[in-house]
């Protein structure tokens, strides 16, 4: 589903590469943690998958497409197959919960009827039924992240990328979010999650990919946060 082949990324104006010669293969339906110290290149990895950036060298395949050869006008179609969640939620403050989720469908041209059909379903999936008409500032952080996940997932993408989705949440709330991501993964969605949260990684026992200064130093199935010897 996601394959990196000898990918190196040097940001403009930087000497040190953010990613060095990364080769990794993530299968359909996998759940992968991306761990590593601050600045190790986790966000860069995710941004490359979205084609927000292009690799300096190497090849990236996402959903069967070679991103280094993908025409600019096909990028939106690629992104419709990928849901994205961030640490800071990125909700629209002037739209309700339902409005925020519907926005993702409105801007890709879905009909009102279709939107009205799927939005309640996804809100129920993330556990926000009854809160459709609240505004983001009337929600807790965990609830806001659920809205963001609902928005990322409402179009039923094959891949969900999450960049420190629990970074702003307390441990208990984080567990709730992890359960939700796990459920989304079990539906068949490939999930890649960058995180610093050792407790969560240790508890979930999923595949762990560790980066260190842009190098892949560990790729372990059913791994833990800290390097197992």
């Amino acid at each position, binding site marked *: 589903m996601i394959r990196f082949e000898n990918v190196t990324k040097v940001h403009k104006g930087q000497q040190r590469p953010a990613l060095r010669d990364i080769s990794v293969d993530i299968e359909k339906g996998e759940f992968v943690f991306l761990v590593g110290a601050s600045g190790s290149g986790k966000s860069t990895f995710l941004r490359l998958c979205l084609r927000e950036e292009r690799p300096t060298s190497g090849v990236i395949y996402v959903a069967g497409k070679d991103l280094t050869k993908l025409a600019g006008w096909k990028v939106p179609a690629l992104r419709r197959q990928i849901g994205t969640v961030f640490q800071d939620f*990125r909700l629209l403050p002037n739209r309700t919960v339902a409005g925020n989720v519907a926005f993702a469908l409105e*801007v890709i*041209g879905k009909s009102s009827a279709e939107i009205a059909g799927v939005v309640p379903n996804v809100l129920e999936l993330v556990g926000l039924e009854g809160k459709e008409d609240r505004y983001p500032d009337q929600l807790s952080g965990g609830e806001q992240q659920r809205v963001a996940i609902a928005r990322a997932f409402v179009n039923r993408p094959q891949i969900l990328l999450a960049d420190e989705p629990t970074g702003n949440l307390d441990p208990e709330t984080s567990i709730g979010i992890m359960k939700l991501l796990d459920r989304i993964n079990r539906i068949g969605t490939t999930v890649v999650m960058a995180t610093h949260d050792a407790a969560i990684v240790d508890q979930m026992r999923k595949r762990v990919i560790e980066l260190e200064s842009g190098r892949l130093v560990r790729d372990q199935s059913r791994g833990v946060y800290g390097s197992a010897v």
Partner: protein
Amino acid sequence: MRLSFILSEVRNGLRRNLNMTLAVVITVGVSLSLFGAALLVRAQVSQMKDYWYDRVEVSIFLCGPVSEAPSCSGGAVTDVQKQQILADLNSLKPLVQKVYYESKAQALQRFQQQFKGSPLAQNATVDQMPESYRVKLSDPTKFAVIASAFAGRPGIEDVQDQRQALDRLFRALGGLQALALAIAFAMLLVTVLLIANTMRVASFSRRRETSIMRLVGASNAAIRMPFVLEAAVAAFAGGVVAALGLVAVKAFLIDRTLASTFQFTTFIGWDVILWTILEVVLTGVALAVVAASVTLRRYLRV
């Protein structure tokens, strides 16, 4: 992208930045008004040109009893000379389109009308007035042909081209036209810059929306469309303001004031006003769309 969604985005965008929208509408309105006014001046001047050049003549003044020109040393023009001149003029057809003879009495009448109310008119007598042939040319620029054929010939005091006087006048009017156009283009430039800046501000203030749109896979066109439409709507509103201004110019300035004061020419009609309005509104909207698109290409990276 559904139309209703785009339209509601446009409406929200315009309302959210009401001050900015008003600034754009007013600036576009003012600059398009000036642009339109410049176009009207040009149309008016060219209409005056048509009107007057259509009426210009070459005047061949004949010798009177007191004429001092060397060609008049033989005294007043004789009937034989007059017939010869007329025959020669007629032989120059088709360059010579029409020939009128103006007698001393007719010349006096015209003179008195021109200087009505002045003592000059009251004191003039028939004998002081020259007889003349008034010649209308099919091509008014070929005055030299007539001048070389008739100037200095016995019985002819002088050959005059009215066109030369008009040329001086229209050179001055041409300067006016150029000035009006320069102002108009400067204003259009201001409009473009203002719209570009408005788009920069708008795309910055809505970067959260647009970044989400990018992430969920909205197309470039869908992301930029609301901004471009907003600019187009604001420019159209400015165009309507300018249109009202031009209608007011025609109804009040031209029809009520100028037309009754200056009766020596005709003024541009409603057809010219309507065409100018069309031109002005289309120019405004097109400029806005281009300025917005180019700016967004830079500031709304997709």
